[in-house]
């Protein structure tokens, strides 16, 4: 095996005493689709209350790894996940873990904004409703309002909560989806290329939002933009052909990559 142990955070010395606790710990996670290996022995420690960026060429397994974290691979026929993956020390792949409960604490935002065919209000209230989080209509109103505020969308939609979610612009839709995800108080938020369908201004807003959310959540973001990874993340992991090549503090990865493949990728020589 390549030196996959080196991706475990405690080997990255020099973070100092502000070091946040480990939220997600993966050991030898492998994923195969219909017997075809997509992810090879990934081991990584992801800290809480910070943003971790996954970068790498298309098809290298970034989304696949994200889907392991909320067991969305269960919904894909023929996907087989092995290895150990712990969130707060609890084994995610354990048979006793109900994916429904797991997904309530691991939110996900997708590449293409996917608001449900409902009103803005109902989109945000979707999670609280199915998980029974609100005891009264007032509660629910409160959750919707605070989630929209956290997602920085409240000002723009407060007077049209009953309009369909699809009537918003692309950037607003993506923030709506983020509000929907944080309405059920997740601990981890997974974002799979959340800005790739947005214009630069909407992207800047989302990045700002991610930076604010960092204080309360463990955020993992997949991105194809080096600048974005550099702007929003504290740590960066570089994936290549199903393996995790390098993981460390973002400024280290971008200024002083250890692996030549990382060097090639961030300087744009391939990918």
């Amino acid at each position, binding site marked *: 095996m390549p030196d996959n142990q080196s991706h475990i955070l405690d080997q990255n010395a020099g973070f100092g005493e502000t070091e946040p606790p480990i939220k997600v710990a993966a050991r030898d996670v492998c994923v195969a689709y219909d017997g075809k290996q997509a992810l090879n022995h990934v081991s990584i420690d992801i800290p809480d209350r910070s943003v971790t960026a996954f970068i790498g060429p298309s098809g290298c397994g970034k989304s696949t790894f994200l889907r392991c974290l909320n067991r969305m691979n269960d919904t894909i026929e023929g996907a087989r996940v092995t290895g150990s993956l712990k969130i707060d020390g609890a084994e995610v792949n354990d048979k006793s873990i109900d994916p429904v409960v797991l997904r309530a604490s691991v939110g996900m935002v997708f590449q293409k904004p996917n608001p*449900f065919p409902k009103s803005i209000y109902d989109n945000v209230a979707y*999670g609280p409703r199915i998980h029974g989080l609100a005891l009264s209509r007032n509660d629910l109103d409160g959750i919707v309002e605070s989630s929209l505020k956290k997602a920085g969308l409240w000002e723009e939609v407060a007077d049209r909560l009953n309009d369909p979610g699809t009537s918003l612009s692309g950037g607003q839709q993506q923030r709506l989806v983020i509000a929907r995800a944080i309405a059920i108080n997740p601990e981890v938020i997974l974002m799979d290329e959340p800005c790739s369908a947005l214009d630069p201004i909407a992207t800047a807003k989302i990045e700002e939002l991610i930076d604010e959310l960092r204080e309360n959540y463990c955020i993992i973001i997949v991105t194809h933009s080096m600048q974005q990874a550099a702007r929003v993340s504290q740590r960066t992991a570089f994936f290549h052909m199903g393996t995790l090549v390098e993981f460390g503090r973002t400024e280290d990865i971008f200024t002083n990559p250890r692996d030549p493949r990382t060097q090639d990728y961030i300087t744009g020589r391939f990918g």
Partner: protein
Amino acid sequence: MSVIAIVALMVIVMLAGGFYVGRARAIGAVNGNTVRLHSLPNYHGYYVAIWTGLPAFLLLAAYGIFGGQAVERLTFSELQREASALNARLEERLLSDAEYEEFRGAALQLRERVNAIGDDMQRLRSARGEERDPARLEQLQQEQREALNSATAAEEAAIGRRAELVAAVGSEAEAAGASMRQLAGFELVQAPREQRQLFLSDAMQIANGALSSRESAELNAAARIVARYQDRIRYFVAVLALVFAAGGLLRTRSQVIPDFRARNHVERLITGLLLLSSVLAILTTVGIVFSLLFESIRFFSTVPVSEFLFGLQWSPQIALRADQVGQSGAFGAVPLFAGTALITLIAMAVAVPIGLLSAIYLSEYAGPRFRATAKPVLEILAGIPTVVYGFFALLTVGPAIRGLFTWLGFDDVVTQSALSAGLVMGVMIIPFISSLSDDVINSVPQTLRDGSYAMGATRSETITRVVMPAALPGIVGAILLAVSRAVGETMIVVMAAGQGANLTANPLESVTTITVQIVMLLTGDQEFDSPKTLSAFALGLVLFVITLIMNVIALRVVQRYREKYD
């Protein structure tokens, strides 16, 4: 083989030749260096071929459509010319015939009297106060009726006398050695209008060697004229088609030079052809709608629209008195609308839940292998001819329903009921709904499902709260299309629902629908302008309007849905 078929074959051969000539010439013009051509060599070939074949075939098609009519017209005018001498003789005889003149004069006078009385009555009706005199009005009415009867009698006598004179002139002419053609023309011209058509079509039949309904020396003479014109037109068209083909070939062949934009020309011709086809399809539809409309208007001139749309009594069969136009039965279509609605409702009550649930199962739960077998099987159901469903309803479901309800203590349950027709129609429509809904559900983007699962929703929560709302417009569209199918379905209802035009909401009684009544009204021997027959057109118009509205709404709804998720 007929001349026309030979010419068509020749044109095809010339067309194929034209293709090769055009192609070869294009290649030859650049000495094989085809890159220098503006268009590929094949386009030059197509161009020459099209101009060789198209005009000739259009001419042949026009001959096919209008040839018969042209022959008929020409024959008629020739026979008319032949008959002019005899006609003149007849006119003389009519003028000098005292009996005929007397009848005619009497008829004219009586007609005038009828009109005069009519004016009087009109004045009386619009009068006010003392002037108003119902007794006088009644008397006038009586007088008018008598005058009308006498007028009709006089007219008939005049017509009879005239017929006698026609026969006399005819036989005199024959005795005096007039030609058969003259006699044929005379017979044709003097015949009443509807018989003229018959005479001509008989002549055409004889000319074509087919059996005709009658035969006479006059007809044979006319048939010879028909045959002569047929031959003339046929050879004229044949020669002209060949000239067109050859001319087109020669003219376009000389156009083939390297810079000739053959591709653009061919594209334009193809566009024109496609446009023509769609225009033809649209025109056909418009034509059908207009014929429905005109016949309906004729019907509504005898039966008022309000009576038709709101009347509660439907019995077109009972003719109260043979001579009373517009009085043959009752034409209130409400029982038919109600019967159609009842059966459609029952069918939808069966088809919508089952079809929808099976679509949900197929698209969201079933494994790929089950889906791969179940979907085609469901679609086979849609391919069963409705008459098969019809006798299934009549022979199996109907008796079963009667048995069940008799056992439950109902009496007089009939075999042919709205329920059995509705149930079986529902089964027929299931695959329609399930297949369309399955497509709609499948086209809900996977990202929506993923979004819901990622929120921790279960599969059934995802389906009911996200997938169904997203698919709803499409499903509504599918249901509306299914409703318009149910409304238009005929065979099952003819066989299984009985024919009683009962106005009832009881599904155990027999009812009848719009479509069934159209079948009943138009099958068997019918006179084509009785209100009974014309009412079928009005029903057809109603049916057309209903299904049109339904389809428009369905398409609108589906379209809105498409705009949202592409």
